[in-house]
């Protein structure tokens, strides 16, 4: 059976690429510290020696639209192009190309459907910055095949937070039951408190530092019960109007397991939002 070599959860800040590649007067004052933190975080994936990456993210109205909106979708394609014109325009992100792992996509779809998750699928998916940003931070070589998993954290009505957790638990079980000798890293990105297009956007910190402090504690300690008790679809509007992206962190807590402490935790208080990085190494996995 396949091995889950690492479970990784983080924010996906679209400005990292530009900040880390800028020079001279264009280089923001926080860039060096940010690059150093990303370098250490990247090492947590490298040392797990993965063969395949399952990547959980959320399309930001790039390919997926309100006329046909899946709640959970698995990409099943031999390759994925990455980033869209308006992400190049706003964030300076590069066009990318990533190989796909169709066999594992097919396995997750078939077994996921049979386990009670009515997963949508896509045979031609262009991945956006929710997946390309963690590739840039964690595996910029983009040499490993991926299985993209998209969630709807963006367009109400959305699934309940507990459903994200359940899907994360199912993804963990399914990967561990995949008849393969490959080492799989499961990587997902979301948000802490975040405001986009509202009065609290682009402040000196995230819009709700107290929520961020609690959220980092929940994730780092694997405290799924407190996270589930502490948030609801309604309450997630309060820390910031884009904070439903926290449900992707909850999905990753489901992957990591109830009350399983992260082996690596780091954060960076940036303007606009707090960055947070977590890695778990499943017990007994050689690394």
């Amino acid at each position, binding site marked *: 059976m396949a091995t889950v070599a690492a479970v990784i959860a983080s924010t996906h800040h679209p400005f990292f690429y530009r900040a880390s590649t800028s020079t001279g007067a264009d280089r923001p004052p926080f860039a060096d510290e940010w690059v150093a933190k990303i370098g250490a975080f990247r090492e947590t994936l490298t040392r797990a020696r993965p063969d395949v990456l399952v990547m959980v993210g959320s399309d930001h109205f790039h390919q997926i639209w309100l006329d046909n909106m899946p709640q959970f979708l698995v990409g099943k394609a031999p390759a994925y192009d990455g980033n869209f014109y308006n992400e190049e325009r706003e964030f300076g992100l590069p066009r990318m190309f990533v190989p796909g792992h169709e066999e594992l996509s097919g396995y997750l779809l078939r077994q996921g459907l049979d386990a009670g998750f009515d997963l949508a699928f896509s045979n031609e998916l262009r991945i956006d910055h929710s997946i390309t940003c963690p590739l840039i931070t964690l595996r910029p070589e983009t040499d490993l095949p991926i299985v993209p998993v998209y969630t709807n954290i963006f*367009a109400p009505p959305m699934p309940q937070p507990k459903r994200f957790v359940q899907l994360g638990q199912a993804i963990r079980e399914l990967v561990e039951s995949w008849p393969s000798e490959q080492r799989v890293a499961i990587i997902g990105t979301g948000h802490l408190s975040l405001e986009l*297009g509202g009065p609290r956007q682009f402040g000196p910190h995230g819009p709700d530092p107290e929520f961020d402090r609690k959220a980092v504690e929940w994730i780092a300690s694997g405290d799924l019960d407190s996270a589930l008790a502490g948030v609801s679809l309604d309450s997630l509007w309060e820390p910031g109007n884009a904070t439903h992206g926290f449900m992707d962190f909850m999905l990753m807590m489901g992957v990591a397991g109830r009350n399983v402490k992260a082996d690596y935790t780091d954060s960076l208080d940036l303007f606009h939002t707090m960055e947070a990085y977590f890695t778990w190494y499943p017990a007994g996995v050689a690394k």
Partner: protein
Amino acid sequence: MSKYLVNKFLYTVDRDPVLVERYRADPRGTVAWWEAEQANLILNCHSGERSTWLAFTGAERDALASHDYVALFGLGAHNFLTLTLFIALFERDYEEPLAFQREYAARLGHWTVPYPDIST
């Protein structure tokens, strides 16, 4: 009330560099053309396939035609779509990084949670 159609306008303009410039230069004309010619196209279908019922309310049409992102927020347009498109339209007019985004926030400063519902 046609939040979906307002979002469809923001979405289809934001993804097209020619339309972004056209909307910046001539908002009222672009909105009129788009509502007449584009609003009922079913995206990802054969170009002959159209809906028959989609139209803006007067308030929605006016908000889009006057680049009024504060009014769009009040109408429940999707916050991400509005922000992204308006950054593309106006960030270039500001010298300081993020100056437009901060002005955008300040102009919405009279709002507190709960914000207008963005559900469609």
